């Protein structure tokens, strides 16, 4: 229904989309142009159109383009997973990292790195290169399934329970990851360290392809659930009365979140705060109606990841601090500001 046209906030959607889209586009172009070897915009265009010098082609097509595509997948999937979680739990502070989904995905990924050979033996050969994303997806999905079982038991007071359970899940995942690190050999330790710092540069095309595909599914599932997410704000019983198959909608959104967070965490490591911050910024821009909020949240996520990636690449070249550092430096203070601002109105 297009009531959105008649309400405040709906009118602010288009300028926000254009502005954010342009910002993300400029950041993406900057990401392709800047680096140890600067490439001018016309040369970038030439390479993307199939021409260009061999060295520029190699730099752009093998290094900077997969990096950009991974940023696209990470920004969109994390932002929409966060929006889906916040909508489902009716709590604007929910975030895949806070409630343990990223922790579960990380545990899956670390297990794949350390126990990779043993795990790969159980997989058909065609799937073996995808062990890392598969394991991260399984870890994220397991945490989400656990949290939903908890929602069923806790009933209406589920939200506080979920967030506390997320703290516990994060602690358990952290301890198990610590255990795996303890038993890993030198090479695995090296792989682990690089992966756990998070970064868009390390992944090759196959893993980036999987992340893009999964992010695409997340995008589709979450955008199609805009009305369901609106209805969920009434509470589960009222959402059912208004015509929503609540269980099916929960399952679809949980799948979308596990897929998106799992694939992105596998490819880029744990990236914090995008899932929390992007939907919040979108809510401030467009209001709470999900049809308007979701596309804007996805663009905020993309712009934030691109900005953070550009930041870490240009801060102290040629060294590259982990991207999680930049997103946490943006997201941490924002989260604190949000908490302090909400203190007076949290029950309103």
């Amino acid at each position, binding site marked *: 229904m297009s009531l959105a046209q008649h309400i405040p906030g709906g009118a602010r959607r288009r300028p926000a989309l254009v502005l954010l889209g342009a910002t993300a586009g400029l950041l993406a172009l900057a990401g392709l142009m800047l680096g140890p070897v600067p490439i001018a915009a016309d040369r970038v265009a030439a390479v993307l159109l199939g021409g260009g010098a061999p060295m520029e082609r190699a730099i752009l097509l093998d290094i900077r383009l997969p990096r950009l595509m991974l940023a696209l997948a990470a920004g969109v999937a994390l932002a929409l997973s966060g929006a889906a979680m916040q909508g489902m739990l009716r709590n604007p502070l929910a975030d895949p990292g806070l409630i343990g989904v990223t922790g579960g995905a990380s545990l899956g990924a670390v297990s794949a790195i350390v126990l990779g050979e043993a795990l790969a033996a159980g997989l058909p050969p065609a799937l073996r290169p995808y062990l890392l994303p598969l394991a991260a997806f399984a870890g994220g999905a397991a945490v989400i399934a656990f949290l939903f079982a908890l929602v069923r038991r806790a009933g209406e007071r589920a939200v506080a329970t979920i967030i506390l359970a997320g703290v516990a899940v994060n602690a358990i995942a952290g301890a198990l990851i610590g255990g795996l690190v303890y038993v890993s050999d030198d090479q695995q330790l090296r792989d682990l360290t690089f992966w756990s710092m998070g970064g868009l540069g390390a992944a090759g095309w196959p893993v980036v392809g999987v992340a893009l595909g999964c992010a695409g599914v997340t995008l589709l599932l979450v955008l199609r659930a805009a009305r369901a997410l609106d209805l969920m704000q009434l509470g589960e019983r009222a959402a*059912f009365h208004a015509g929503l198959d609540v269980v099916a909608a929960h399952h679809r959104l949980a799948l979308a979140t596990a897929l998106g967070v799992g694939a992105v965490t596998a490819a880029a490591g744990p990236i914090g705060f995008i899932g929390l911050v992007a939907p919040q910024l979108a809510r401030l821009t467009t209001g709470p109606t999900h049809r308007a909020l979701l596309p804007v949240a996805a663009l905020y996520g993309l712009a934030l990841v691109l900005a953070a990636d550009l930041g870490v690449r240009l801060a102290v070249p040629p060294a590259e601090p982990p991207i999680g550092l930049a997103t946490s430096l943006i997201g941490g203070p924002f989260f604190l500001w949000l908490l302090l601002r909400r203190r007076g109105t949290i029950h309103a």
Partner: protein
Amino acid sequence: MLEARGISRRLGGAEVLCDVDLAVAPGEVLALAGPNGAGKSSLLACLSGALRPDAGCVRIDGVDPATLSASALARRRAVLEQTPAMAAGFPLEVLVGIAIPADLPPVQAARLVAESIAAMGLTRHRGRPIGQLSGGERHRAHMARALAQLAAGRCLGSGRWLLLDEPTASLDPAHQGAVLRAARAAAHDGAGVLAVLHDLTLAAALADRVALMRLGRIVAAGPPDEVLAPDLLTRVYGLPMQVMRPRGGPLTVVPRYHETQEGEFGCS
């Protein structure tokens, strides 16, 4: 018809409904009354399809609601819950139109939303977020949501039932009147209305029939004049009740609190 046939239901180990028979006819307003914990909301939840009975069956237009999808059910009946979540950020129009099926043309949907908002006296609050409205205004906004859903269901050919759980709680007398008028208007348009009410004077003014519940059972059902009798009410509520009917005037039920002995409230 919207009917419950011999339904029983246990919740958390306690039997909240016990062999309940109740039917609402199209065009009729049925008030459901009884003490707290009598099973009124559970009965309403069974009739709405949100709760499945352990025994017995529910039929909505002759169909078992468990066999209908949530969206098909939503076209047949609209429900005002006792305590809906606030959905604080939504503007009034979005909340009121939120349950209208997407296949109703937007212009028609916008018209139903405006009419429902007007019926609940909320027109001057258009565009404001629900969180900025008072408690009573929020309650009326949710009532408007149920009315819009029912009207949309009617436009799509199947909206026939309106289930209201304490629609007048937290409302001042004037707005209680607005809710009653809206319920009567829905019945006039052919809908069957079931309303859980605590105010028996209101129930007498609104309803064609009143059903009294106690401890999970229907103890009496019939026209207000018959059911709202002092002896029966005193037995059901454990509180002396006076029923007055000034010549030609409305039936009035007055609890006689001052005659209550300590410890008598709510006990059997």
